[in-house]
């Protein structure tokens, strides 16, 4: 994938309404094929979620964004619904090559994983009745449930939420996890309350 990026001193302005101010002295600009290939690699390498890989490749290896730019884009993408890195790929593609860039970046990201998961699904269809495979997948499912719980605990520990934040967290857990209420209804009630609280208290 050499030649996927050209080192140039300034960003092209064709795709952006106004010149983008540069923070660093040199910024790499992806070519169209580089955009596709790089996101393809991020998708295929991202075992257990693509988030950590995406930052490493985009910021450290390719130098398309510095850490601050990346954090800003990611923050916006986390407020938006849908897969976070999918949203990042769309915004990054648009920044460098407009709508076509977005299409190239997101299809690069999704193509590899979709092919792999399709093959896995095929195997599951073929061997799904085989007791040994069934019990292996059953064990992986039990471990996967632990991944969610552990990740949530890690986030709770790191975030140091206020008491109100913890109460909202608890409400979301009870309503969705225990009472099994519809997500849409719960978001409709909890999101405005929580955002308003964040607005007033600036947690």
């Amino acid at each position: 994938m050499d030649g996927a990026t050209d080192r140039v001193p300034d960003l092209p302005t064709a795709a952006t309404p106004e010149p983008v101010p540069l923070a660093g002295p040199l910024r790499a600009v992806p070519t169209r094929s580089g955009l596709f290939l790089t996101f393809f690699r991020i998708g295929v390498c991202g075992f257990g979620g693509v988030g950590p890989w995406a930052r490493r490749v985009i910021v450290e290896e390719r130098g398309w964004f510095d850490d601050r730019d990346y954090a800003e884009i990611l923050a916006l993408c986390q407020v938006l619904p849908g897969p976070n890195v999918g949203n990042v790929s769309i915004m990054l593609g648009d920044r460098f090559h407009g709508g076509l860039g977005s299409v190239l970046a997101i299809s690069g990201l999704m193509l590899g994983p979709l092919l792999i998961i399709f093959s896995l699904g095929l195997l599951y269809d073929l061997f799904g009745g085989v007791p040994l495979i069934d019990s292996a997948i059953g064990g992986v499912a039990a471990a996967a449930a632990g991944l969610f719980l552990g990740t949530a605990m890690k986030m709770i520990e790191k975030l140091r939420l206020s008491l109100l934040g913890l109460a909202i967290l608890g409400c979301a857990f009870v309503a969705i996890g225990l009472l099994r209420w519809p997500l849409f209804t719960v978001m409709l009630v909890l999101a405005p309350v929580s955002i308003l609280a964040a607005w007033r208290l600036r947690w």
Partner: protein
Amino acid sequence: MVDADFWTLVDLFVTFAHLALVAVGGMQASLPEVYRQTVEVHGWMSAPEVADLVALAQASPGPNGLFVSLIGWRVAGLPGFVVATLGLALPPALLAFGMSRIRKRLEGARWLRAAQGGLVPIVVGLMLASGSVSARAADDTIAKVALTLAVAVVVWRTRWNPLWLLVVGAVVGVSGL
């Protein structure tokens, strides 16, 4: 595999498009709603089946939300796979593209930071709910309950690669505990 009739495909698309648009904080956070829609509302499959498909998606690279594509496949074959994937990816992609176009104007906006901060506790609460709902679908023996809890503690307290924990899970599963 069921043959793909048109309205099932429409149903798949609408279900997962709606889900993808409500799912702030990634598809993992919306897992309980995936269970509710797939098992309770539509009756497409049983909860342990959903747990299996989620496990398959966890064990493969890429965005974790792709278990949705597998659900589509189980429900309506290849057309279901395609339609469910489009439902998952397309509406948020269009929204992200629109936001990308007005991003410069949003930078540093106070409401945006409040929205981010305010959604954080909800996202974490949903993640916790995803764990509890998946555990109840997958843990049919005492050993599996122990496995779930052990993996949770390891993920919480260490920086081990989660992929190895899934391998351990497969071994525990095969050993028939």
